[in-house]
Protein backbone atom coordinates (compact mmCIF):
# COMPACT_ATOMS: atom_id res chain seq x y z
CA UNK A 1 0.00 0.00 0.00
CA UNK A 2 2.87 2.36 0.82
CA UNK A 3 4.23 1.70 -2.65
CA UNK A 4 0.91 2.69 -4.22
CA UNK A 5 0.80 5.93 -2.23
CA UNK A 6 4.36 6.70 -3.28
CA UNK A 7 3.51 5.93 -6.90
CA UNK A 8 0.50 8.23 -6.90
CA UNK A 9 2.50 10.95 -5.15
CA UNK A 10 5.29 10.75 -7.73
CA UNK A 11 2.82 10.99 -10.60
CA UNK A 12 1.00 13.85 -8.88
CA UNK A 13 4.27 15.77 -8.67
CA UNK A 14 5.05 14.99 -12.31
CA UNK A 15 1.59 16.29 -13.23
CA UNK A 16 2.66 19.73 -12.03
CA UNK A 17 5.33 19.90 -14.75
CA UNK A 18 3.25 21.78 -17.37
CA UNK A 19 2.35 24.44 -14.79
CA UNK A 20 5.81 25.08 -13.42
CA UNK A 21 7.91 24.51 -16.54
CA UNK A 22 7.66 27.47 -18.88
CA UNK A 23 9.94 26.36 -21.68
CA UNK A 24 8.56 24.13 -24.41
CA UNK A 25 11.95 22.48 -24.72
CA UNK A 26 12.01 21.35 -21.09
CA UNK A 27 8.41 20.21 -21.15
CA UNK A 28 9.20 18.18 -24.25
CA UNK A 29 11.98 16.52 -22.29
CA UNK A 30 9.54 15.54 -19.52
CA UNK A 31 7.16 14.17 -22.15
CA UNK A 32 9.92 12.09 -23.71
CA UNK A 33 10.95 10.74 -20.31
CA UNK A 34 7.35 9.68 -19.60
CA UNK A 35 7.12 8.13 -23.06
CA UNK A 36 10.36 6.19 -22.51
CA UNK A 37 9.12 5.10 -19.08
CA UNK A 38 5.94 3.82 -20.74
CA UNK A 39 7.94 1.84 -23.31
CA UNK A 40 10.24 0.52 -20.61
CA UNK A 41 7.45 -0.40 -18.21
CA UNK A 42 5.69 -2.31 -21.00
CA UNK A 43 8.86 -4.34 -21.61
CA UNK A 44 9.37 -4.71 -17.84
CA UNK A 45 6.08 -6.60 -17.48
CA UNK A 46 7.26 -9.40 -19.74
CA UNK A 47 11.04 -9.09 -19.33
CA UNK A 48 11.48 -7.94 -15.74
CA UNK A 49 8.52 -9.63 -14.05
CA UNK A 50 8.14 -12.54 -16.47
CA UNK A 51 11.81 -13.21 -17.29
CA UNK A 52 11.07 -13.43 -21.03
CA UNK A 53 13.54 -11.16 -22.80
CA UNK A 54 11.99 -9.71 -25.91
CA UNK A 55 14.17 -8.05 -28.55
CA UNK A 56 11.17 -7.17 -30.65
CA UNK A 57 8.85 -4.87 -28.73
CA UNK A 58 8.75 -2.66 -31.81
CA UNK A 59 6.24 -5.20 -33.13
CA UNK A 60 3.63 -3.93 -30.65
CA UNK A 61 4.73 -0.30 -30.72
CA UNK A 62 4.60 -0.16 -34.50
CA UNK A 63 1.24 -1.89 -34.63
CA UNK A 64 -0.28 0.67 -32.27
CA UNK A 65 1.29 3.55 -34.18
CA UNK A 66 0.36 2.32 -37.66
CA UNK A 67 -3.18 1.41 -36.60
CA UNK A 68 -4.04 4.90 -35.42
CA UNK A 69 -2.27 6.50 -38.39
CA UNK A 70 -3.63 4.27 -41.15
CA UNK A 71 -7.20 4.38 -39.83
CA UNK A 72 -7.08 8.19 -39.87
CA UNK A 73 -5.33 8.72 -43.16
CA UNK A 74 -6.74 5.93 -45.28
CA UNK A 75 -10.20 5.46 -43.79
CA UNK A 76 -10.89 8.77 -42.04
CA UNK A 77 -11.58 7.04 -38.74
CA UNK A 78 -11.31 9.17 -35.62
CA UNK A 79 -8.03 8.65 -33.72
CA UNK A 80 -9.86 8.06 -30.42
CA UNK A 81 -11.29 4.96 -32.05
CA UNK A 82 -7.84 4.37 -33.53
CA UNK A 83 -6.40 4.49 -30.02
CA UNK A 84 -8.66 1.66 -28.88
CA UNK A 85 -8.08 -0.27 -32.11
CA UNK A 86 -4.31 0.26 -31.84
CA UNK A 87 -4.27 -1.07 -28.29
CA UNK A 88 -6.38 -4.08 -29.25
CA UNK A 89 -4.34 -4.88 -32.35
CA UNK A 90 -1.11 -4.63 -30.35
CA UNK A 91 -2.61 -7.14 -27.91
CA UNK A 92 -3.51 -9.32 -30.89
CA UNK A 93 0.01 -9.24 -32.29
CA UNK A 94 1.38 -10.03 -28.83
CA UNK A 95 -1.02 -12.95 -28.49
CA UNK A 96 0.07 -14.28 -31.87
CA UNK A 97 3.78 -14.02 -31.03
CA UNK A 98 3.08 -15.53 -27.61
CA UNK A 99 1.26 -18.48 -29.17
CA UNK A 100 4.03 -18.98 -31.70
CA UNK A 101 6.75 -19.04 -29.04
CA UNK A 102 5.39 -20.11 -25.63
CA UNK A 103 3.26 -22.90 -27.10
CA UNK A 104 6.48 -24.50 -28.30
CA UNK A 105 8.38 -23.78 -25.12
CA UNK A 106 10.83 -21.27 -26.61
CA UNK A 107 12.84 -19.61 -23.85
CA UNK A 108 15.90 -17.45 -23.36
CA UNK A 109 17.83 -16.50 -26.45
CA UNK A 110 15.51 -18.49 -28.73
CA UNK A 111 12.57 -16.44 -27.55
CA UNK A 112 14.60 -13.23 -27.98
CA UNK A 113 15.60 -14.11 -31.53
CA UNK A 114 12.09 -15.04 -32.59
CA UNK A 115 10.66 -11.77 -31.24
CA UNK A 116 13.35 -9.86 -33.11
CA UNK A 117 12.46 -11.75 -36.27
CA UNK A 118 8.75 -10.95 -35.92
CA UNK A 119 9.46 -7.24 -35.55
CA UNK A 120 11.68 -7.35 -38.64
CA UNK A 121 9.02 -9.20 -40.63
CA UNK A 122 6.51 -6.50 -39.73
CA UNK A 123 9.01 -3.80 -40.72
CA UNK A 124 9.53 -5.38 -44.13
CA UNK A 125 5.79 -5.90 -44.61
CA UNK A 126 5.00 -2.29 -43.73
CA UNK A 127 7.70 -1.25 -46.17
CA UNK A 128 6.13 -3.15 -49.05
CA UNK A 129 2.39 -2.51 -48.85
CA UNK A 130 0.67 0.65 -50.05
CA UNK A 131 -1.72 1.43 -47.24
CA UNK A 132 1.10 2.14 -44.78
CA UNK A 133 2.70 4.54 -47.25
CA UNK A 134 5.48 2.01 -47.69
CA UNK A 135 9.01 3.43 -47.54
CA UNK A 136 7.80 6.99 -47.96
CA UNK A 137 6.00 6.81 -44.67
CA UNK A 138 2.66 8.13 -43.58
CA UNK A 139 1.90 11.71 -42.63
CA UNK A 140 -1.04 12.41 -40.33
CA UNK A 141 -2.59 15.75 -41.35
CA UNK A 142 -2.32 18.45 -38.75
CA UNK A 143 -5.77 19.05 -37.24
CA UNK A 144 -5.41 20.35 -33.69
CA UNK A 145 -8.32 19.63 -31.42
CA UNK A 146 -9.12 17.23 -28.63
CA UNK A 147 -11.62 15.48 -30.91
CA UNK A 148 -8.73 14.62 -33.24
CA UNK A 149 -6.41 13.53 -30.41
CA UNK A 150 -4.12 16.43 -31.33
CA UNK A 151 -3.30 19.32 -29.09
CA UNK A 152 -2.37 22.98 -29.63
CA UNK A 153 0.15 22.92 -26.83
CA UNK A 154 2.51 20.43 -25.33
CA UNK A 155 0.38 20.35 -22.18
CA UNK A 156 -2.27 18.27 -23.93
CA UNK A 157 0.28 15.72 -25.11
CA UNK A 158 1.83 15.74 -21.70
CA UNK A 159 -1.42 14.61 -20.12
CA UNK A 160 -2.02 12.02 -22.83
CA UNK A 161 1.31 10.30 -22.20
CA UNK A 162 1.03 10.90 -18.44
CA UNK A 163 -2.27 8.98 -18.41
CA UNK A 164 -0.90 6.06 -20.44
CA UNK A 165 2.24 5.88 -18.30
CA UNK A 166 0.31 6.07 -15.04
CA UNK A 167 -1.93 3.24 -16.28
CA UNK A 168 1.14 1.12 -17.07
CA UNK A 169 2.65 1.79 -13.65
CA UNK A 170 -0.64 1.00 -11.90
CA UNK A 171 -0.83 -2.25 -13.84
CA UNK A 172 2.68 -3.15 -12.70
CA UNK A 173 1.83 -2.21 -9.11
CA UNK A 174 -1.11 -4.59 -9.38
CA UNK A 175 1.16 -7.32 -10.77
CA UNK A 176 3.40 -6.94 -7.74
CA UNK A 177 0.45 -7.49 -5.41
CA UNK A 178 -1.69 -10.04 -7.18
CA UNK A 179 -1.94 -13.79 -7.56
CA UNK A 180 -1.16 -13.30 -11.25
CA UNK A 181 2.07 -11.51 -10.33
CA UNK A 182 3.03 -14.23 -7.89
CA UNK A 183 2.58 -16.88 -10.55
CA UNK A 184 4.50 -14.75 -13.05
CA UNK A 185 7.44 -14.45 -10.65
CA UNK A 186 7.30 -18.17 -10.03
CA UNK A 187 7.43 -18.92 -13.76
CA UNK A 188 10.33 -16.49 -14.17
CA UNK A 189 12.32 -18.01 -11.32
CA UNK A 190 11.67 -21.67 -12.04
CA UNK A 191 9.11 -22.76 -14.55
CA UNK A 192 9.22 -26.42 -13.67
CA UNK A 193 8.60 -25.83 -9.98
CA UNK A 194 5.82 -23.39 -10.84
CA UNK A 195 4.11 -26.03 -12.97
CA UNK A 196 4.44 -28.56 -10.16
CA UNK A 197 2.51 -26.14 -7.93
CA UNK A 198 -0.28 -26.07 -10.47
CA UNK A 199 0.62 -22.79 -12.15
CA UNK A 200 -0.40 -22.81 -15.81
CA UNK A 201 2.88 -21.39 -17.12
CA UNK A 202 1.62 -20.97 -20.67
CA UNK A 203 -1.43 -19.00 -19.64
CA UNK A 204 0.59 -16.81 -17.27
CA UNK A 205 3.13 -15.95 -19.97
CA UNK A 206 0.34 -15.23 -22.45
CA UNK A 207 -1.22 -12.82 -19.96
CA UNK A 208 2.12 -11.06 -19.50
CA UNK A 209 2.93 -10.71 -23.19
CA UNK A 210 -0.54 -9.36 -24.00
CA UNK A 211 -0.45 -6.78 -21.21
CA UNK A 212 3.07 -5.85 -22.28
CA UNK A 213 1.94 -5.53 -25.90
CA UNK A 214 -0.98 -3.29 -24.91
CA UNK A 215 1.24 -0.67 -23.27
CA UNK A 216 3.81 -0.78 -26.07
CA UNK A 217 0.94 -0.28 -28.49
CA UNK A 218 -0.31 2.72 -26.53
CA UNK A 219 3.21 4.18 -26.66
CA UNK A 220 2.98 3.76 -30.44
CA UNK A 221 -0.38 5.54 -30.57
CA UNK A 222 1.09 8.41 -28.57
CA UNK A 223 4.14 8.59 -30.82
CA UNK A 224 2.03 8.76 -33.97
CA UNK A 225 -0.19 11.53 -32.62
CA UNK A 226 2.73 13.51 -31.19
CA UNK A 227 5.06 13.45 -34.18
CA UNK A 228 2.36 12.96 -36.87
CA UNK A 229 4.75 10.99 -39.04
CA UNK A 230 5.71 7.33 -39.25
CA UNK A 231 7.81 5.18 -41.51
CA UNK A 232 8.64 1.47 -41.26
CA UNK A 233 12.02 2.11 -39.68
CA UNK A 234 10.60 4.37 -36.97
CA UNK A 235 7.64 2.12 -36.18
CA UNK A 236 9.09 -1.37 -36.47
CA UNK A 237 12.84 -0.68 -36.44
CA UNK A 238 15.20 -2.02 -33.80
CA UNK A 239 15.68 1.36 -32.10
CA UNK A 240 12.33 1.08 -30.30
CA UNK A 241 13.04 -2.50 -29.25
CA UNK A 242 16.42 -1.46 -27.87
CA UNK A 243 15.04 1.54 -26.00
CA UNK A 244 12.28 -0.64 -24.53
CA UNK A 245 14.74 -3.00 -22.91
CA UNK A 246 17.46 -0.48 -22.12
CA UNK A 247 15.20 1.64 -19.90
CA UNK A 248 14.30 -1.10 -17.42
CA UNK A 249 17.79 -2.63 -17.51
CA UNK A 250 19.27 0.72 -16.51
CA UNK A 251 16.53 1.49 -14.02
CA UNK A 252 16.10 -1.95 -12.53
CA UNK A 253 14.28 -4.91 -14.05
CA UNK A 254 11.36 -6.33 -12.17
CA UNK A 255 10.94 -3.24 -10.02
CA UNK A 256 8.01 -0.83 -10.11
CA UNK A 257 10.02 2.41 -10.29
CA UNK A 258 12.95 1.07 -12.31
CA UNK A 259 11.61 2.16 -15.71
CA UNK A 260 10.99 5.71 -14.48
CA UNK A 261 14.53 5.98 -13.10
CA UNK A 262 15.94 4.39 -16.25
CA UNK A 263 14.00 6.70 -18.56
CA UNK A 264 15.15 9.79 -16.66
CA UNK A 265 18.77 8.60 -16.57
CA UNK A 266 18.80 7.68 -20.24
CA UNK A 267 17.44 11.04 -21.34
CA UNK A 268 19.66 12.97 -18.96
CA UNK A 269 22.71 11.22 -20.38
CA UNK A 270 21.71 11.64 -24.00
CA UNK A 271 20.88 15.34 -23.52
CA UNK A 272 24.19 15.83 -21.80
CA UNK A 273 26.16 14.24 -24.62
CA UNK A 274 24.24 16.33 -27.12
CA UNK A 275 25.37 19.42 -25.18
CA UNK A 276 28.97 18.29 -25.03
CA UNK A 277 29.56 16.48 -28.32
CA UNK A 278 26.81 17.96 -30.44
CA UNK A 279 24.71 16.13 -33.00
CA UNK A 280 26.82 13.28 -34.30
CA UNK A 281 24.89 10.62 -36.26
CA UNK A 282 24.80 7.33 -34.40
CA UNK A 283 26.34 8.72 -31.23
CA UNK A 284 23.30 7.76 -29.17
CA UNK A 285 23.64 4.12 -30.21
CA UNK A 286 27.30 4.07 -29.20
CA UNK A 287 26.31 5.65 -25.93
CA UNK A 288 23.47 3.16 -25.33
CA UNK A 289 25.81 0.27 -25.98
CA UNK A 290 28.44 1.57 -23.59
CA UNK A 291 25.79 2.28 -20.96
CA UNK A 292 24.39 -1.22 -21.28
CA UNK A 293 27.83 -2.79 -20.78
CA UNK A 294 28.53 -0.63 -17.75
CA UNK A 295 25.16 -1.38 -16.18
CA UNK A 296 25.37 -5.11 -16.68
CA UNK A 297 28.93 -5.19 -15.32
CA UNK A 298 28.54 -2.98 -12.30
CA UNK A 299 24.86 -2.60 -11.56
CA UNK A 300 23.07 -5.73 -12.76
CA UNK A 301 20.03 -4.78 -10.70
CA UNK A 302 19.87 -1.27 -12.12
CA UNK A 303 19.50 2.06 -10.40
CA UNK A 304 16.68 0.75 -8.24
CA UNK A 305 19.01 -2.03 -7.05
CA UNK A 306 21.71 0.54 -6.29
CA UNK A 307 19.26 2.54 -4.19
CA UNK A 308 18.21 -0.56 -2.30
CA UNK A 309 21.82 -1.48 -1.65
CA UNK A 310 22.74 1.94 -0.30
CA UNK A 311 19.66 1.94 1.88
CA UNK A 312 20.40 -1.54 3.17
CA UNK A 313 24.00 -0.63 3.97
CA UNK A 314 22.92 2.20 6.16
CA UNK A 315 20.41 0.07 8.01
CA UNK A 316 21.56 -3.54 8.12
CA UNK A 317 18.85 -5.81 9.48
CA UNK A 318 19.76 -8.42 12.03
CA UNK A 319 19.85 -11.96 10.72
CA UNK A 320 19.74 -10.88 7.09
CA UNK A 321 23.43 -10.65 6.41
CA UNK A 322 25.64 -12.99 4.46
CA UNK A 323 25.42 -16.73 4.55
CA UNK A 324 27.71 -19.61 3.76
Amino acid at each position, binding site marked *: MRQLVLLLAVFAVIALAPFVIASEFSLNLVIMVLYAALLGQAWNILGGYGGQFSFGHAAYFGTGAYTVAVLQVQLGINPWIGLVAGGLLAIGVAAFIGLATFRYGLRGSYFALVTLAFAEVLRILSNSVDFTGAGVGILIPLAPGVANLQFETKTGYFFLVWTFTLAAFLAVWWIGHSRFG*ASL*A*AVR*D*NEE*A*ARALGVNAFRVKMGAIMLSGLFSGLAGVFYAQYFLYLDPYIAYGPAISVESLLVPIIGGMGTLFGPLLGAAALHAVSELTREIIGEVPGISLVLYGALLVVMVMFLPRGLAGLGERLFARRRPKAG*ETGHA
Partner: protein
Amino acid sequence: MLEVRALRAGYGAVEVLRGVDLDIARGEIVALLGSNGVGKTTFAGVLSGLVPAWSGTVMFNGSAIAGLGAGRIVDLGLIHVPEGRHVFPNLTVRENLELGAYRRARANRARNIDHVVSVFPRLKERFSQKAGTLSGGEQQMLAIGRGMMAEPELLILDEPSIGLSPLLVEEMFDLIGNLKREGLTILLVEQNVLQSMEIADRAFVMENGQIRLSGKPADLMDDPDLQRAYLGLA
Protein backbone atom coordinates in the same frame (compact mmCIF):
# COMPACT_ATOMS: atom_id res chain seq x y z
CA MET B 1 -5.19 -44.14 -2.31
CA LEU B 2 -3.08 -44.39 -5.47
CA GLU B 3 -3.36 -47.19 -7.95
CA VAL B 4 -1.24 -47.25 -11.09
CA ARG B 5 -1.81 -49.90 -13.74
CA ALA B 6 0.17 -50.62 -16.92
CA LEU B 7 1.42 -47.06 -17.14
CA ARG B 8 3.44 -46.21 -20.22
CA ALA B 9 5.07 -42.89 -21.05
CA GLY B 10 8.14 -41.41 -22.68
CA TYR B 11 9.60 -38.55 -24.65
CA GLY B 12 9.29 -38.39 -28.43
CA ALA B 13 9.82 -41.92 -29.72
CA VAL B 14 11.66 -43.08 -26.61
CA GLU B 15 9.58 -45.18 -24.26
CA VAL B 16 10.72 -44.66 -20.69
CA LEU B 17 7.96 -46.31 -18.67
CA ARG B 18 7.03 -49.73 -20.06
CA GLY B 19 3.97 -50.70 -18.09
CA VAL B 20 4.36 -49.70 -14.45
CA ASP B 21 2.08 -51.08 -11.70
CA LEU B 22 2.25 -49.55 -8.26
CA ASP B 23 -0.08 -48.79 -5.39
CA ILE B 24 0.04 -46.73 -2.24
CA ALA B 25 -2.25 -46.93 0.78
CA ARG B 26 -3.15 -43.97 2.98
CA GLY B 27 -0.57 -43.16 5.65
CA GLU B 28 2.27 -45.12 4.06
CA ILE B 29 5.73 -44.09 3.02
CA VAL B 30 6.43 -45.94 -0.19
CA ALA B 31 9.94 -45.83 -1.59
CA LEU B 32 10.51 -46.02 -5.33
CA LEU B 33 14.09 -47.13 -5.81
CA GLY B 34 16.37 -47.73 -8.73
CA SER B 35 19.52 -46.39 -10.28
CA ASN B 36 19.88 -43.38 -12.52
CA GLY B 37 17.85 -43.34 -15.71
CA VAL B 38 15.42 -46.15 -14.99
CA GLY B 39 12.39 -43.83 -15.20
CA LYS B 40 11.73 -42.85 -11.59
CA THR B 41 11.56 -39.12 -12.24
CA THR B 42 9.46 -39.63 -15.36
CA PHE B 43 7.07 -41.70 -13.28
CA ALA B 44 6.76 -38.93 -10.69
CA GLY B 45 6.17 -36.42 -13.50
CA VAL B 46 3.38 -38.50 -15.02
CA LEU B 47 1.62 -38.81 -11.66
CA SER B 48 1.60 -35.03 -11.19
CA GLY B 49 0.64 -34.28 -14.80
CA LEU B 50 3.95 -32.68 -15.83
CA VAL B 51 4.68 -35.50 -18.29
CA PRO B 52 1.83 -36.88 -20.44
CA ALA B 53 0.99 -40.56 -20.10
CA TRP B 54 0.84 -42.69 -23.25
CA SER B 55 -1.46 -45.35 -21.86
CA GLY B 56 -2.48 -47.04 -18.64
CA THR B 57 -4.50 -45.81 -15.69
CA VAL B 58 -3.71 -43.76 -12.61
CA MET B 59 -6.47 -43.79 -9.99
CA PHE B 60 -6.08 -41.31 -7.15
CA ASN B 61 -8.70 -41.45 -4.39
CA GLY B 62 -11.07 -43.06 -6.84
CA SER B 63 -10.69 -40.64 -9.75
CA ALA B 64 -8.71 -41.23 -12.93
CA ILE B 65 -6.03 -38.52 -13.11
CA ALA B 66 -3.87 -39.56 -16.06
CA GLY B 67 -4.33 -36.84 -18.66
CA LEU B 68 -5.63 -34.18 -16.29
CA GLY B 69 -3.62 -30.95 -16.21
CA ALA B 70 -1.05 -30.43 -13.47
CA GLY B 71 -3.30 -27.79 -11.90
CA ARG B 72 -6.29 -30.12 -11.57
CA ILE B 73 -4.11 -32.80 -10.05
CA VAL B 74 -2.82 -30.31 -7.47
CA ASP B 75 -6.45 -29.45 -6.71
CA LEU B 76 -7.06 -33.10 -5.87
CA GLY B 77 -4.21 -33.05 -3.36
CA LEU B 78 -1.43 -34.86 -5.17
CA ILE B 79 1.61 -32.63 -4.65
CA HIS B 80 4.95 -33.18 -6.37
CA VAL B 81 8.22 -31.76 -5.08
CA PRO B 82 10.43 -32.11 -8.17
CA GLU B 83 14.01 -33.25 -8.19
CA GLY B 84 16.77 -30.70 -7.80
CA ARG B 85 15.75 -28.16 -5.16
CA HIS B 86 13.43 -26.15 -7.31
CA VAL B 87 12.93 -23.02 -5.26
CA PHE B 88 12.18 -19.56 -6.62
CA PRO B 89 15.57 -17.90 -5.99
CA ASN B 90 14.49 -14.27 -6.28
CA LEU B 91 11.53 -14.65 -3.95
CA THR B 92 11.76 -14.75 -0.18
CA VAL B 93 11.26 -17.90 1.85
CA ARG B 94 7.87 -16.58 2.86
CA GLU B 95 6.84 -15.91 -0.75
CA ASN B 96 8.03 -19.35 -1.78
CA LEU B 97 5.87 -20.92 0.90
CA GLU B 98 2.87 -18.81 -0.02
CA LEU B 99 3.12 -20.00 -3.61
CA GLY B 100 2.78 -23.54 -2.30
CA ALA B 101 -0.84 -22.65 -1.58
CA TYR B 102 -1.33 -21.27 -5.08
CA ARG B 103 -4.28 -23.56 -5.82
CA ARG B 104 -5.05 -25.46 -2.63
CA ALA B 105 -5.53 -24.51 1.00
CA ARG B 106 -5.26 -20.79 0.26
CA ALA B 107 -7.43 -19.88 3.21
CA ASN B 108 -5.16 -21.74 5.63
CA ARG B 109 -1.92 -20.14 4.46
CA ALA B 110 -1.01 -18.40 7.71
CA ARG B 111 -1.69 -21.47 9.81
CA ASN B 112 0.22 -23.75 7.43
CA ILE B 113 3.23 -21.43 7.30
CA ASP B 114 3.40 -21.62 11.09
CA HIS B 115 3.24 -25.38 10.83
CA VAL B 116 5.96 -25.63 8.15
CA VAL B 117 8.40 -23.46 10.08
CA SER B 118 7.76 -25.52 13.19
CA VAL B 119 8.76 -28.62 11.22
CA PHE B 120 11.72 -26.82 9.59
CA PRO B 121 12.88 -24.28 12.19
CA ARG B 122 15.78 -23.22 9.95
CA LEU B 123 13.28 -21.72 7.53
CA LYS B 124 12.04 -19.44 10.26
CA GLU B 125 15.51 -17.98 10.71
CA ARG B 126 15.66 -17.26 6.97
CA PHE B 127 12.05 -16.20 6.64
CA SER B 128 12.53 -12.91 4.76
CA GLN B 129 15.72 -13.90 2.98
CA LYS B 130 15.73 -14.65 -0.73
CA ALA B 131 15.56 -18.37 -1.38
CA GLY B 132 18.59 -18.18 -3.69
CA THR B 133 20.79 -17.31 -0.72
CA LEU B 134 19.87 -20.46 1.20
CA SER B 135 22.20 -23.44 1.48
CA GLY B 136 21.43 -26.60 -0.45
CA GLY B 137 19.85 -28.35 2.51
CA GLU B 138 17.74 -25.35 3.39
CA GLN B 139 16.54 -25.07 -0.19
CA GLN B 140 15.47 -28.69 -0.12
CA MET B 141 13.62 -28.10 3.14
CA LEU B 142 11.95 -25.09 1.57
CA ALA B 143 10.89 -27.11 -1.46
CA ILE B 144 9.35 -29.77 0.79
CA GLY B 145 7.77 -27.15 3.04
CA ARG B 146 6.28 -25.49 -0.02
CA GLY B 147 4.77 -28.84 -0.99
CA MET B 148 3.25 -29.16 2.50
CA MET B 149 1.56 -25.77 2.14
CA ALA B 150 -1.04 -27.33 -0.17
CA GLU B 151 -2.13 -29.78 2.57
CA PRO B 152 -1.23 -32.76 0.38
CA GLU B 153 -3.11 -36.03 0.45
CA LEU B 154 -0.13 -37.59 -1.25
CA LEU B 155 3.29 -35.95 -1.30
CA ILE B 156 5.79 -37.06 -3.94
CA LEU B 157 9.39 -36.28 -2.98
CA ASP B 158 11.80 -36.74 -5.86
CA GLU B 159 15.38 -37.30 -4.70
CA PRO B 160 15.21 -35.10 -1.59
CA SER B 161 18.68 -36.25 -0.50
CA ILE B 162 20.51 -35.63 -3.77
CA GLY B 163 23.59 -33.44 -3.48
CA LEU B 164 23.39 -33.08 0.29
CA SER B 165 26.24 -33.80 2.67
CA PRO B 166 25.98 -37.10 4.60
CA LEU B 167 25.01 -35.32 7.79
CA LEU B 168 22.24 -33.43 6.03
CA VAL B 169 21.05 -36.58 4.31
CA GLU B 170 20.59 -38.10 7.75
CA GLU B 171 18.66 -35.04 8.91
CA MET B 172 16.52 -35.04 5.77
CA PHE B 173 15.45 -38.65 6.25
CA ASP B 174 14.65 -37.98 9.91
CA LEU B 175 12.45 -35.09 8.82
CA ILE B 176 10.66 -37.22 6.23
CA GLY B 177 10.09 -39.85 8.91
CA ASN B 178 8.52 -37.13 11.06
CA LEU B 179 6.18 -36.17 8.24
CA LYS B 180 4.84 -39.71 8.17
CA ARG B 181 4.16 -39.56 11.89
CA GLU B 182 1.99 -36.54 11.16
CA GLY B 183 -0.14 -38.76 8.96
CA LEU B 184 1.17 -37.72 5.55
CA THR B 185 1.23 -40.26 2.74
CA ILE B 186 4.52 -40.06 0.89
CA LEU B 187 5.98 -41.47 -2.29
CA LEU B 188 9.72 -41.21 -1.83
CA VAL B 189 11.67 -41.46 -5.09
CA GLU B 190 15.28 -42.16 -4.17
CA GLN B 191 18.61 -43.62 -5.17
CA ASN B 192 19.69 -43.76 -1.56
CA VAL B 193 18.59 -47.32 -0.86
CA LEU B 194 19.72 -47.93 2.70
CA GLN B 195 18.25 -44.83 4.24
CA SER B 196 15.04 -45.03 2.23
CA MET B 197 14.53 -48.60 3.41
CA GLU B 198 14.83 -47.46 7.02
CA ILE B 199 11.84 -45.15 6.87
CA ALA B 200 9.70 -46.80 4.16
CA ASP B 201 6.76 -49.11 4.85
CA ARG B 202 7.08 -50.69 1.43
CA ALA B 203 9.45 -50.34 -1.46
CA PHE B 204 9.29 -50.79 -5.22
CA VAL B 205 12.41 -51.33 -7.27
CA MET B 206 12.32 -50.02 -10.80
CA GLU B 207 14.52 -51.24 -13.59
CA ASN B 208 14.38 -50.29 -17.22
CA GLY B 209 10.96 -48.67 -16.97
CA GLN B 210 9.27 -51.49 -15.11
CA ILE B 211 8.77 -52.53 -11.49
CA ARG B 212 10.99 -55.57 -10.90
CA LEU B 213 10.46 -56.11 -7.20
CA SER B 214 8.27 -54.91 -4.42
CA GLY B 215 7.70 -55.70 -0.81
CA LYS B 216 8.55 -54.81 2.74
CA PRO B 217 12.05 -53.38 3.18
CA ALA B 218 13.08 -56.13 5.57
CA ASP B 219 12.25 -58.84 3.05
CA LEU B 220 13.94 -57.04 0.19
CA MET B 221 17.06 -56.31 2.17
CA ASP B 222 17.47 -59.93 3.27
CA ASP B 223 17.82 -61.35 -0.20
CA PRO B 224 21.47 -61.27 -1.28
CA ASP B 225 20.73 -61.85 -4.95
CA LEU B 226 18.38 -58.93 -4.94
CA GLN B 227 20.96 -56.76 -3.34
CA ARG B 228 23.48 -57.53 -6.01
CA ALA B 229 21.16 -57.38 -8.95
CA TYR B 230 19.02 -54.39 -8.24
CA LEU B 231 20.24 -52.36 -5.33
CA GLY B 232 23.88 -52.09 -6.22
CA LEU B 233 24.97 -53.43 -2.85
CA ALA B 234 27.70 -56.00 -2.42
